């Protein structure tokens, strides 16, 4: 079992200038076998949280509970957790084998040949048996990474703690290892707490994402929940690349219907959107993801006229940087569309795709409607019907 609870975790560092609150009253419940990614910008407290869980820092307040037992005051070695560090932290004077054996030798009374076979099995699983007799300095970054993973896996801990384990790898290797790590975690079924500043890693790997900012919890949810239904403006801006576009708008109810007024455009609101934001003052932030921006004709309802500043063709899609009222915004358009810099482009924000945030608190008042699950359901239904038919024939 590896059910981990972080209860009211608070960590305050004393500095010359005063107290720095690294983690502020954080609550997370992690189910056995779950992969939770803590994500946030630098200094958001994600690593501190991880270190508190691992016992490398002692919390100022709150508890770490593992399988119903508080381990807050226990030393790291009592916690049955293994950690993978960003710098790998391999012992440079030991071979890969000795690195992997070290924890077992220290923590258990296993006989030598048992340790040996466990290390070799783990090495086999990671595809590194030929590296066992080499020292870290003889290994590439990716290989060191694997040995560091092996050192954690061989212990068969209740919880894996991973502190930006992929950050020191080059882009290609990082993508590879991401998939591999995810598969490994699923195979092993060990509860994993994974820290990263890379929202792509968070999105692709996690069962659930924990978004932190300034030591405070912003949202816990599945990657798609965080993406489609961000609880506030910070999550909306942090999750997703390129980031969501934000427009400072004011609500105008003096005309025919409720309208959001921006320096560069007006956006007539639907009744249901208005119902969500009514009573939250007059200042709001309108949000729309770059890929939700659609091209439009000039006379279309709610159309926005913009100037193309820069285009970044990636082949599959093109990022178009648009200027609206002296501010830059991003739209993701189809890759086969040729868009010249400097031309005028008319766009629209589909009504079911907009987000509206309270301008003061950042709280999400209206999120885009959830994507339909039906399409994929019906597709897979078709597929299975096909295959069933095929098998009958």
């Amino acid at each position: 079992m590896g059910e981990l609870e972080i209860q009211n975790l608070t960590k305050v560092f004393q500095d010359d200038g005063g107290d720095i609150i690294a983690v502020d009253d954080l609550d997370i419940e992690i189910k056995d076998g779950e992969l939770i990614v803590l994500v946030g910008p630098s200094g958001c407290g994600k690593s501190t949280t991880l270190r508190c869980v691992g016992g490398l820092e002692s919390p100022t307040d709150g508890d770490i509970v593992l399988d119903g037992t508080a381990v807050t005051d226990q030393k790291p070695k009592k916690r049955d957790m293994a950690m993978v560090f960003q710098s790998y932290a391999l012992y440079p004077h030991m071979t890969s084998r000795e690195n992997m054996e070290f924890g077992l030798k220290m923590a258990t009374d296993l006989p030598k040949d048992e340790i040996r076979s466990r290390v070799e099995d783990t090495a086999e699983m990671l595809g590194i048996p030929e590296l066992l007799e080499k020292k870290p300095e003889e290994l590439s970054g990716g290989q060191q990474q694997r040995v560091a993973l092996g050192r954690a896996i061989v212990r068969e801990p209740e919880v894996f703690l991973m502190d930006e384990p992929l950050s020191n790898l080059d882009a290609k290797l990082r993508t590879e290892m991401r998939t591999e790590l995810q598969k490994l975690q699923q195979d092993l079924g060990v509860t994993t707490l994974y820290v990263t500043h890379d929202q792509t890693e968070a999105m692709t790997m996690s069962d659930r994402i924990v978004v932190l900012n300034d030591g405070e919890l912003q949202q816990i949810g599945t990657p798609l929940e965080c993406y489609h239904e961000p609880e506030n403006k910070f999550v909306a801006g942090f999750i997703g690349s390129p980031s969501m576009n934000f427009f400072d708008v004011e609500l105008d109810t003096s005309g025919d219907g409720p309208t959001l007024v921006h320096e560069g455009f007006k956006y007539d609101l639907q009744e249901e959107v208005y119902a969500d934001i009514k009573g939250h003052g007059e200042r709001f932030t309108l949000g729309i993801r770059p890929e939700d921006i659609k091209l439009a004709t000039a006379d279309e309802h709610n159309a926005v006229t913009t100037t193309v500043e820069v285009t970044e063709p990636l082949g599959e899609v093109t990022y178009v940087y648009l200027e609206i009222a002296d501010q830059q915004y991003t739209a993701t358009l189809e890759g086969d569309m040729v868009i010249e810099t400097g031309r005028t482009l008319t766009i629209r924000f589909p009504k079911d795709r907009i987000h509206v945030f309270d301008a003061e608190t950042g709280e999400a008042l209206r999120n885009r409607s959830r994507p339909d699950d039906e399409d994929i359901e019906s597709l897979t239904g078709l597929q299975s019907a096909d295959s069933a038919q095929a098998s009958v024939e």
Partner: protein
Amino acid sequence: MATQTESRFSRYREVFLSFLSDTWIGYAFVIPATIILAVIIGYPTLRGLYLAFFEVSLLNPEQMNFVGLENFAALASDPIFKQALWHTVLLTALAVSLQYLLGLGLALALKEKVPGAGIFRSLSMVTWVMPVIVMVIIFRFMVQNGFGPINILLDSLGMPTTYWFGEPGVAFPLIIVMHIWRNVPFYAISLLAAMQSIPKEQYEAARLDSAGPLQRFRHITLPQISYVSMIMIVLHVTFTFKNFDIVYLSTGGGPLGNTEVLATYVYKQAFEQYALGMGASIGVVMLILMLAFTVIYVKLEEVD
């Protein structure tokens, strides 16, 4: 034909000049040092080796009698030489091992964030930078009979007082203490530097790997400071083995030969007994023993 020869010569000239221009700066840097070394180290060494096979008096150095290995035979049966050799070995072994252990302890203490560690780190080098004569005078004052602080303290505790450098059985330990006092901070600083180059993540990884403080020291710290440790030990073995000033200035080898070491014995043979050949032959013995350490040092250097 003539032009061909000429061109061949000019090519040689070019190659030669480019060789010169590439290397002359290198030679220019190396030559002065080489000459100085040859004059102040090479010549005395060779001269010493040569003298070891002669009977020469300092009072009449022109008159030299070749005696072959007789000087060495005399050393083999000289009880003072044997005692000096034993003292040298004992001093080296005790001083270096105690210095290392205390230096290691100090380094570990300094590594923890003890208040005032920074100031201590700067101040501690004072003992190493201080001229030996100043250090010896301080020590002699400390153990001075009558008004030396140590004797005042002993007296107030009702214990016997004396000039401790003149006390057989105490003089030798005092010399070890002086070596330790002088060198421990240097060991500590060197070992501390080696320890601080170990990333703290390794200790954190070891903590999660269930290693306690002693195991972390044994498995993480010690293996990674072993290289610096070996260099420090080998260097100080040679320093201590040939040390002359500390012993000669404090006790002059006395009382009653209790602190006689090879370096002081060489001096006495050559400049007090005027037996230049005899002194040279002791020097040769020291040279051979020191060469052995040098070989170890060079081998260690190659490891890295």
